[in-house]
């Protein structure tokens, strides 16, 4: 298996570094952290020190440089070598939380929020989904009413990755009228009176990363924490989605690849009826089908990345890549469990965890159905 077509020598070197980091810092604790539903906060500065937290972000704001292609291969190698999807996605929650600040925030906001995150000093989260609705962003109900130098925020958010520990939350709020035009992005900091983590949610997969329900009750947020202009939130959210979907597609490629590697290793070692599992044609063909679907998902995701870097932001193609990759990932992880038999159903086996982790992807970052709506609209039917 080779990487993406867009990879150059520097991507391969970056993979080696990410691999070394994840093998040393994550893999030995992967099972423990997943079972504990938390990884140590100290891992953020460790990752920043290794130069990996800021990959894909400008050095101007404390990043390590590079673009989305670098960020994706580094994250992929973290999954492959670290073997804890929950830890990697928890460490990566800034991938959706800080781009709106980089894109539209003031220099002061970038200094206060972006740099400390990329240095591993602050944890960030993005909050859009509400208990009353997720996909229907335009109807979100969390209100932010202007009162002098503050916005008074009331409402709640749910399914917020890293929300339990976040030092600030990039939050979508309604500052204006109904529908798209009334939405703004506001940075709400931990400790602001009225902002509480109402629940730590228990999930199917991604255990090592925390997921929160957040509550805002007469929460007074300084006007200086508004990102961009009032009413610019919807567009910001939509722009964020393209890169988020590519990133989710690439996580699926990494998870599929890891499940595949575990399956290949298991089939060469496990014996049944006097030969290894790999001695059975039906097993070899199953592995071949897994490899094929992974290659197809990787190819489409890679093409999307190349087009994106060429300046072509295609929401429908990103949606296609996400659906292709999530379908592949769900199927490959299911097959991996089947290959492992009874062991595949046991929590101590990596594939059991990957099978659960895989279930997130057709839901998070826009459901499979929403992806198809985007594709339908662009296709014109």
């Amino acid at each position, binding site marked *: 298996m080779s990487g993406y077509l867009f990879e150059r*020598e*520097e991507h*391969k*070197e*970056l993979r*080696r*570094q990410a691999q*070394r*980091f994840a*093998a040393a810092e994550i893999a030995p604790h992967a099972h423990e952290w997943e079972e504990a539903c938390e990884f140590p906060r100290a891992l953020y500065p460790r990752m920043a*020190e*290794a*130069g*990996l937290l800021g*990959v894909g972000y400008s*050095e101007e704001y404390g990043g*390590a*440089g*590079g673009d989305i292609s*670098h960020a994706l291969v580094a994250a992929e190698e973290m999954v492959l070598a670290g073997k804890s999807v929950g830890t990697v996605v928890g460490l990566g929650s800034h991938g959706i939380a800080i781009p709106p600040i980089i894109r539209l925030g003031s220099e002061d906001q970038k200094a206060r929020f972006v740099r400390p995150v990329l240095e591993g000093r602050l944890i960030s989260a993005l909050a859009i989904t509400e208990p009353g609705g997720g996909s229907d962003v335009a109807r979100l109900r969390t209100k932010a009413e202007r009162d002098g130098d503050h916005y008074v925020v009331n409402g709640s958010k749910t399914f917020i990755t890293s929300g339990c520990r976040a030092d600030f939350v990039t939050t979508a709020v309604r500052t204006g009228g109904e529908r798209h035009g009334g939405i703004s992005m506001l940075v709400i900091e931990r400790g602001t009176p009225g902002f509480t983590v109402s629940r730590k949610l228990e999930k199917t997969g991604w255990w090592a990363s925390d997921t929160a329900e957040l509550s805002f009750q007469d929460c007074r947020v300084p006007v200086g924490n508004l990102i961009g202009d009032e009413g610019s939130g919807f567009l910001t959210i939509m722009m964020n989605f393209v890169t988020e979907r590519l990133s989710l597609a690439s996580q699926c490629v990494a998870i599929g690849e890891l499940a595949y590697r575990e399956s290949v290793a298991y089939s060469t070692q496990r014996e049944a009826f006097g030969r290894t599992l790999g001695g059975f044609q039906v097993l070899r063909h199953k592995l071949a089908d897994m490899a094929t679907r992974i290659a197809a998902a990787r190819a489409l995701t890679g093409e999307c990345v190349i087009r994106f870097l060429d300046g072509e932001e295609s929401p429908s193609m990103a949606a296609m890549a996400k659906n292709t990759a999530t379908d592949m990932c769900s199927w490959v992880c299911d097959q991996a469990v089947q290959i492992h038999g009874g062991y595949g159903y046991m929590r101590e086996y990596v594939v059991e965890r990957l099978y659960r982790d895989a279930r997130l992807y057709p839901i998070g970052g826009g459901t499979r159905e929403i992806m198809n709506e985007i594709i339908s609209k662009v296709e014109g039917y």
Partner: protein
Amino acid sequence: MKILVTAKRVPDPESTIKVNSSGDGIEEAGIKWVVNPFDEIAIEEALRVKEAQGDAEVVVVSIGPSEAQEQLRTGLAMGADRAILVTGENLDTSAVAKILVKIVEKESPDIVITGKQAIDDDSNEVGQMTAQLLGWPQATFISELKIADDKSSAECTREVDGGMETISVPLPALITADLRLNEPRYASLPGIMKARKKPLEQIEAASLGVDTTPKIVIKSMAPPPAREAGRIVESVDELVTALQSEAKVL
């Protein structure tokens, strides 16, 4: 000050190693290659010396296949200033030492740092042989390095049986790095990008006028015998009996 440091291309220690079909080497297909971990420690130490001294240059050298460029780029990405690749095939430790001597003579470094051994063949010879051929002092298996203020000598702490030994060597000297010397840094993305533009000189081993005819020929290679499953015994008495009558070690 100039520091010359080595970077051998070796299989990733995490790789599964299989003997090849002709039985005289390992199956190389599908193996990931990395910088010898002890060399990585050597590179880190060279960089620390450079950072402490300010005006030092770090030159990283690899001797082996042309693919070892990758390992040199890793060294450059970590922060080395330039690289030299000596290409050649079927080079044993003696040949590598003789080639390294030629490079040292050409570069005249103040310190040569190598890993104490490479993790592929575990020979633990190149550093010592090179020092001997150069007629240089050597400090092997070091876990601490201090350069004297006047840069005329280096104080090296060596790990020896049952303790530590501290010796002082006049410079130039050759040093081999042990595991606890330091924890190598990660190459950052800006470092990786810069590495692409740093000079990498390629030299063919044959052009150095060194006799590289191998003194060691590998006749056969075999995996270690598979370990048989153990057995849990009920009591100390049963264990003693088994050790006496079955294992015959008591």
